[in-house]
């Protein structure tokens, strides 16, 4: 018996498509061969340059050159474009390697089938087979490409930027060149006094904020839900619909409205306080008060969602638990403590973690309500109510401190990933999800 499988695999390793050709699958072989030609062409014309660019990040800066009588600005290498192209090339090369492996495996398998005496599939047959067995992969191709380009690629790029000196005023292309600096940005973030002071101040506030925002909206939601659902309250639907209102109104609008309401000179809240003879409060202009205001406004915005969630869960608690408790003569308080609360806590544990992470990244509430203000001279490009994420945003958009912004983003990625892993580990619904089988 001829050794089709090995020969086909070796041929396909030498050049994509040869093994298929050897297996007499000519159309498939031609397709793979075309792909190989395109890849080699790309490799020679651009990938090699791009990879070198990724390592050097350019060495020719912008210069003034004398052309005739005038000096003309000649643009040099654009380090950031080189970084983009280089990283894109690496990803494309990975995809090519994957296709290459698939090609060798396909040749080997067809060869094996021939050894077993089967006829190799014709192109239409292979196409049909692929349609059946590879359907899930085909369905996921477009979503995958989207996520690859606009989520994964940007994350990798951000990680790379964190190891460069890409920042104003000197290292901004096309005027200046950007270089690899290793861990320097991270070291600066912790060692340079202004940066490290800002980082740790904002980190502390971010932590306090995330905990209090999560806890207040969570328990606020439970309380409101229980308030509506308790026996003896009429018009439950009406109250529920009314209290969903803050969730239904676009968040950015409510937050901007609150900013106006809490304005300490002309805002309506202080107006009312003054009318009844009280002093106005510096809701948003005092570093401490502003933090409380933010948490309060966030409760207004966030409680409706957890209320809805809890109302949904209350209906799911098995009634016989309560009946059993009644038989044992339990009081309302006991029933609440031993049945309702444990049930809700257990069911909402993953939501709690998601909300916590969401609050660490809660950009809108801070940026639209206080914009990070009131300002402080001690903080580098930040105000006293800025979170790490709003700081990152300002560093990027207003101050062109891209390397620092990226370093902060990397630290946050790591933290969020750890939180996510904790969640995977402890969510039974995620582990035991295989219900449809």
């Amino acid at each position, binding site marked *: 018996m001829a050794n089709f499988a090995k020969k086909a695999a070796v041929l396909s390793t030498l050049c994509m498509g040869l093994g298929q050709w050897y297996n007499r699958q000519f159309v498939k072989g031609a397709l793979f061969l075309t792909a190989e030609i395109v890849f080699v062409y790309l490799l020679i014309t651009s990938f090699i340059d791009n990879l070198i660019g990724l390592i050097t990040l350019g060495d020719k800066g912008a210069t003034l050159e004398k052309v005739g009588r005038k000096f003309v600005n000649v643009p040099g290498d654009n380090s950031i474009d080189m970084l983009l192209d280089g990283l894109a090339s690496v990803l494309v090369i990975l995809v090519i390697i994957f296709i290459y492996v698939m090609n060798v495996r396909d040749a080997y398998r067809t060869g094996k089938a021939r050894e077993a005496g089967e006829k190799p599939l014709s192109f239409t047959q292979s196409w049909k087979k692929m349609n059946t067995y590879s359907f899930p992969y085909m369905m996921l191709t477009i979503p995958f490409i989207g996520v690859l380009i*606009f989520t994964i690629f940007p994350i990798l790029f951000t990680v790379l930027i964190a190891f460069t000196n890409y920042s104003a005023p000197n290292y901004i292309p096309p005027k200046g060149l950007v270089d690899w600096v290793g861990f320097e940005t991270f070291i600066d973030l912790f060692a340079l006094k202004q940066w490290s002071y800002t980082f740790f101040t904002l980190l502390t506030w971010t932590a306090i904020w995330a905990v209090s925002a999560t806890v207040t909206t969570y328990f606020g939601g439970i309380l409101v839900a229980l308030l509506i659902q308790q026996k003896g309250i009429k018009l439950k639907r009406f109250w529920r619909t009314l209290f969903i209102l803050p969730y239904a*109104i676009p968040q950015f609008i409510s937050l901007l409205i609150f900013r106006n309401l809490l304005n300490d000179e002309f805002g309506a809240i202080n107006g009312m306080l003054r009318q009844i003879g009280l002093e106005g409060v510096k809701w948003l202009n005092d570093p401490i008060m502003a933090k409380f205001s933010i948490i309060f406004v966030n409760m207004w915005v966030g409680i409706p969602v957890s209320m809805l969630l809890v109302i949904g869960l209350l209906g799911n608690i098995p009634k016989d638990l309560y009946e059993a408790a009644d038989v044992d003569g339990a009081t309302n308080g006991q029933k609440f403590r031993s049945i309702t609360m444990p049930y809700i806590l257990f069911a909402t544990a993953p939501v709690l973690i998601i909300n916590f992470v969401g609050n660490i990244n809660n950009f809108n509430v801070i940026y639209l309500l206080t914009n990070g203000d009131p300002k402080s001279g001690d903080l580098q490009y930040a105000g006293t109510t800025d979170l790490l*994420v709003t700081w990152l*945003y300002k560093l990027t958009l207003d101050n062109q401190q891209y390397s620092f912004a990226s370093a902060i983003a990397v630290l946050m990625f790591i933290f969020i*990933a750890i939180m996510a892993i904790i969640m995977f580990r402890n969510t039974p619904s995620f582990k035991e999800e295989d*219900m449809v089988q």
Partner: protein
Amino acid sequence: MKKNISLRIILSYLLLVLIAIAVIYPSFWVIMTSFREGTSLYSESIIPKNMTLDHYREIFANDDVSPVLTWYGNTLKVATLSMLFGTIIQLFTAYTISRFRFKGRRVVMSSILLLSMFPGFLSLVAIYAMFQRFDLLGTHAALIIVYSAGAALGMFVAKGYFDTMPRGLEEAARIDGASHMTVFLKIFLPLSKPMLIYIALTTFTGAFVDFVLAKAILRNDREVWTLAVGLYDMVFSSKDAKYTLFAAGAVLAAIPVTLLFLALQRFLVEGITAGSSKG
């Protein structure tokens, strides 16, 4: 005992009324302010003495400084197109991951869960550089692409919905010789109408209300701004903040989204509770 309970109920009603006032007050204030004369924030009473429709007229006049009507159009355009692409992408992803057992499925699911926890604006530097490279900064196309591409990551609620459908559905059809695509289009799509509405609503409002990326990508060209960016500018621009015009704009912007939410709240409640049990 009886008296005790009624006291509890009275207190509860009192609390409910207080919460109701807190819930309604901001909306009431913004509506009243939109009818008030002048441009200032200060007012002696919440209900203006002289009501006026001037600010709404100003919005429909659509001047160059604050072209609210243009922003409205931009926002609707971006949100509608993002909804269209985003819904298709999210539906495909959720359906595939829910109804098929393929190699790497677990990895795909864990990756989606992990990636969905990273907010897009953390890698803003990269998105910025990419769009600059392709000269798409300041365009609606850039926004639509970003919103649609991210839609796959929000698939867990829809996946949970598909999980609850019985297995026999596709098997019967497959035996009859229907292709996977036919099974999806002819059997599952008609059954997933509530889920479709939920996805469409969340992707539409997601794009409608997004501020972070819209501000970063659309930058300083007022003509291409969306409502979120424009209204933010009206409140924060220090030289001539037009509070009453902002109020009118905010009312007009909030109405469609709020009504949509309230009309479809049944689906949202289902979505939220389903999402919680599915992680």
